[in-house]
Structures are given as C-alpha cells and as structure tokens.
C-alpha cells in the first residue's frame, strides 16, 4: 500500500508539468495580450510594459523561468489585480470555494445516501419512484437554471436568503449556492446508492444475515451499507473534478468571490500568472483527492490489495 501511495504522489509532479505547460502554451498562443484594452497603447508604453513583465525575452527562457518559479510555489503577481500576488488571491478565494464545495458535497452525501437507501428498501413503492423522479430532475435541471430559480423563490419572493452575497461559511448566504451546487450530486448519489444497495441486498451474504435472525435494520446498517456504498466512494473521485466546474458556474450566478469566479475573469482578462496558478492548484487538488478516494476504497473493501 505504501508503495502505491508513493507512486501516486510521485506521479503528481509530471502531471503538473503537463498541465502547466499546456495552459501556458494556450495562453501564449492566443491572440491579444493582457494589456489589450479599449485604448491603444503607444509603442513606448507598450515596450515598457513588455520589459517590466519580461515578455521580451525568448519564449524558452520565459518558460524555464516559469517552471523554476512554480517549483518554488511562486506563481507571480496577477496582471490584472494590481500588486496582488497569485498566492494571495488563491489564499483569499480558496476558503470561499472550498466552503461551498464541501458543504455542497456533504449535503449531497447525506441526502443522496438517505434517499437512495430508502428507495432501495422500498423498491417499486411510491418512495422509490418519487425519489428517483426527483433524482432525475436533479440531473436534468442545469445549475445555472436552478440557481436563479431558487433565488427567485427564496430570495426575491420569500426573502429567506440573500440573493447574491457572501458572508462567510456560517451565514445564510451559503445556503442557496450550496443547494444549487449539490442538486446534481444528490441525484447521482441517490441513484448510485439505490442501485448499489439493491445489488447488495440480493447477495447471498445478506440472506445469511437474515437467516441468523438479524432484524431488517441490523441487516441494512451492519451488512448491506458498507458494500452498497462502494459505488458512491468510487464516484467521489471524478465527482470532484466536476464539482470544480460546477463551482465556477454557481459562483458566477451568486457573485461569490471564490476561485471559480477569479478563474473565469482571469481567462477573459488573459491574466496569465493567475490562470496558471489556479489551474495548477486545481490539478494538484484533483490528483490528491483522487488518491485519497482510492485509499479509502481500499479501507472499505478488504479484498482490494494495492501493490
């Protein structure tokens, strides 16, 4: 197991390298520059700007410098947000996005697993059809439609929550964004739990558990749940990758100052250091998270043996 972990950790470095290179190449290949605004700059000013940001050097020098800096976790300063280092921006935006994402996924786990388990236990009943229909709705309504609809209902009509505001994790302002983001995951997790539980409940070892005289509740909680939730665990890996793109949209809809918002703006502003910084961060986060998921999978299923 330890060798497996080390191998996966080591792989992060070349992956990061690839990601950064691709992103950097895309930024460099694109027409226009970060300073292309409405005004046309005079040649002199432009030359000074390029000098200041080291853009006059040959590309491979710049590339090498980039890699060298990144190795020391120095992502440079933002080109659009005057004077702020990328690290500072990351530090500021991360808590927002993380709070949003984690809350959303926790909601999705709790609600989804509960829904899926009840649906499986009462197969073909109204609870089953109802929750699966609800799950289907969750998959079908895009988050950029659901978000505004929730705002329409709960903010602008009922005045329960603020429409587009961020007061921190512990405030009411997290409720609507987190719900919006979690909807599709509630749906997927409910469906996965239901099918996973249905499969497990048909197993021979569940029959053995019943033959031993255990109550249905004991059978489900002690025997069925662990195996039945395995698909949800595997799902969590790729789910994170999609959660990130979901966060981008939700932050835009609710005007939250998170990494997603910064990222989109950086893309439109051609803010190269910020783009690379955020992409690199996301890449590392995804890789680490996937590793954690795989490790926990091995803990849950004792038959898995990593070499």
């Amino acid at each position: 197991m330890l060798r497996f972990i080390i191998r996966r950790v080591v792989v992060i470095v070349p992956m990061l390298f690839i990601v950064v290179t691709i992103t950097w190449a895309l930024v460099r290949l694109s027409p226009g520059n970060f300073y292309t605004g409405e005004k046309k700059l005079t040649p002199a000013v432009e030359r000074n700007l390029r000098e200041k940001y080291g853009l006059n050097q040959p590309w491979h020098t710049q590339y090498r410098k980039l890699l060298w800096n990144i190795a020391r976790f120095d992502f440079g300063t933002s080109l659009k947000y005057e004077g702020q280092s990328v690290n500072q921006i990351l530090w500021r935006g991360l808590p927002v996005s993380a709070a949003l994402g984690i809350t959303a996924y926790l909601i999705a786990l709790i609600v989804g697993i509960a829904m899926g388990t009840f649906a499986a236990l009462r197969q073909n009943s109204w609870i089953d059809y109802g929750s699966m229909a609800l799950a289907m709705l969750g998959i079908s309504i895009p988050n950029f439609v659901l978000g505004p609809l929730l705002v329409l209902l709960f903010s602008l009509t009922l005045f329960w929550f603020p429409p587009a505001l961020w007061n921190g994790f512990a405030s009411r302002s997290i409720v609507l964004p987190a719900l919006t983001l979690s909807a599709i995951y509630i749906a997927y997790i409910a469906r996965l739990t239901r099918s996973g539980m249905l499969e497990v409940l048909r197993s021979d070892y569940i029959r053995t558990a019943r033959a031993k005289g255990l109550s249905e509740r004991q059978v489900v909680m002690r025997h069925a749940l662990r195996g039945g939730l395995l698909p949800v665990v595997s799902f969590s890996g790729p789910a994170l990758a999609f959660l990130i793109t979901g966060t981008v949209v939700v932050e835009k809809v609710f005007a939250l100052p998170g990494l997603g918002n910064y990222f989109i703006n950086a893309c439109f502003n051609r803010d190269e250091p910020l783009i690379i910084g955020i992409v690199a961060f996301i890449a590392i986060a995804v890789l680490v998270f996937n590793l954690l998921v795989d490790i926990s999978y091995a803990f849950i299923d004792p038959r898995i043996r990593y070499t």
Partner: protein
Amino acid sequence: MADYDEHKSNLNEPELHVGPEYAVAERDVSEVVTGEIVTGSSLWRDAWRRLLRNKLAVFGMVVVVLIALSAVAGPAIIKQTTGFTYDSIPKDTRLLRSIPPFRGPNGEFSWKHPMGTDIAGRDILARVLSGGQISLMVALIATLVSLVIGVSYGAIAGYLGGRVDDLMMRVVDVLYSLPYVIIVIVLLALLPAKTPTAQLAQLFFALGAVSWLTMARIVRGQILSLKNQEFVLAARATGVSTPKIIFRHLIPNALGPVIVYATLTIPSVMLSEAFLSFLGLGVRPPRVSWGSLAAEGAQNLAVYPWQLIFPGLTMALMLFCLNFVGDGLRDALDPQMRRD
C-alpha cells in the same frame, strides 16, 4: 457528466452492470423458466420490445422527438407565419421590450408572444426554438466526435493489446485525472474562432474531446472480452487484415454498451455546451443556444423572470427526457449482460 458510468463499481474498468448474486430460489426458478437461447438478430428485437414496455422511456422518446421537431422546423414556421426570428428586432422597440407571455404592448391579452419578449424586443419563443436548433446540433455532433475518437481509440487499444494497450490506457488514465474541462475553458476563452461557423466547429471538437475517454474505456473492455472468441480466430484464419478485423468484426459486436453510453453522452454534452455558453465561452451572439438564453435571462431575473424560465425549463425538459431514454435503453440492452 456521462463520463461517469454509474454502474462502475471497481476502480479500473467501467463495465456495464454484471448481474448480482441471485437468491438461489430465483436461480432455481429462472433456470427452468428461460429455456430459449437468444440468437444474434433477435437480440435487437428483444431489446426494442423491452424498451417499448418501459413507459417512461417511451414517454421520453416522444417528448424528445417533439422538441427536436419543433427545434428543426419551428423557426422556419414561425418566420413564415409571424415574421419573428431569433434576432429580429421589431421596428417599434420600446413598445415590445420585455413583454410578459401572452400579452400585448399595453398589457392586453395577445397570442403573438406566447413566451414573451426579451429586453431587445425579440420574441422568446423564436429564440428558444432557434436555440434548440443550435443546442441539439452541437450535442449531436459533439457526441459523434466523441464517439468516433473514443470507439477507434478503444478498439485499437483493445485489439492490439499488450504494451500498446497498456500505453494507450495509461494516456487515458492521465487525461482522465486532469482537470480537463478547465483546460477546455481556457482554450475557448483564449482562442476564439473568427467566424460563427468556426466557433461552432471549435465547440464540437472541444466538447467531443472532453467526453471520449470513458467511451474508449468501455469499448476497450468489450473488445478485450470479444477478442478471443471464435469468430475472430476464424476471420484471422482466412487472412483478414487487422484493421478490417477491428472495424468490420469487433466493433459491431461491442455496439450494445456503446449505444447506451452514446445516448447518455448526448444530454451530458448538451449540458456542457449550455454552461459554457452561460459563461460566455460557447455559443456567442448573434447565435443563440439554450445556455446563452439562460445567461441573458438570469440577468433580469427579478423583473422579467420568464426570460430565464422558458429557455431553462425547455432545456430541463429535454435533458429529463433524454435521460429517461438513456436509462430505458440501458435497461433494455442490459439483460443480455445479466443485470437484475
């Protein structure tokens, strides 16, 4: 999110669901009850029959066809009858801006704008239908791109096997763990194509490039299990060349899971296009898609909610029904793979 096959329960191969342990009682019974052997052609007929028995899937198919037809034929019909198109701005704009559904300029009842108008006075129904055209087209073509790439890649890897297969699947693993969509966002944001047609083409490829990975895995898995079966040996014995074997023999037999996955990819790609357009990266003005319409509508949500609700709900309905059809297809085709 069709990249994730919901029934994947081990880490490596997203196979379609292989049967659960039957209770012995059911096994006793079912062995006796099912005596027939399913032959090649009746497989599809069986699947079709099973699909038709699934009322939800049938309902889904009907709605999908209806919406698709409206999207294809609608804009032309509307243009003929009322003269509205997705970007026709009426002469007297002030009168017609942001009219609620079924109302005229002075608040009276009117059939002219069943979905109201947007802030520039354009008829929303026409825009929704045109947007549907684009959204559907993008979804279908992008799915096609992802199919072509994924199936070829997976089939080649699966058939060649050995180190080539290892390497090719390694690449897939690497790509799978990259924050792919993020890079696509960067690409679309920074390299906008010049003409609207080029824009669309770029979108097809960008979206197709994101979703081919799981398709490749599925196809490879199928090929691997089919590879050593007899008809392949027979083909090789008669001297059929390798590319021919892959494309003429193996691929048709791997078709089942491919069809299911492709049907599930369509709504996923549609959703991706929508949120890219929402962010301003996908379909751009003057063209419209459901995503870009939603973006516009979201801006004026408080005052003119119908501008978001109609495109949003139309899209949700379409995705809803597509997902039902996809699920129904999976249920219909899966019994051959011994599902519950």
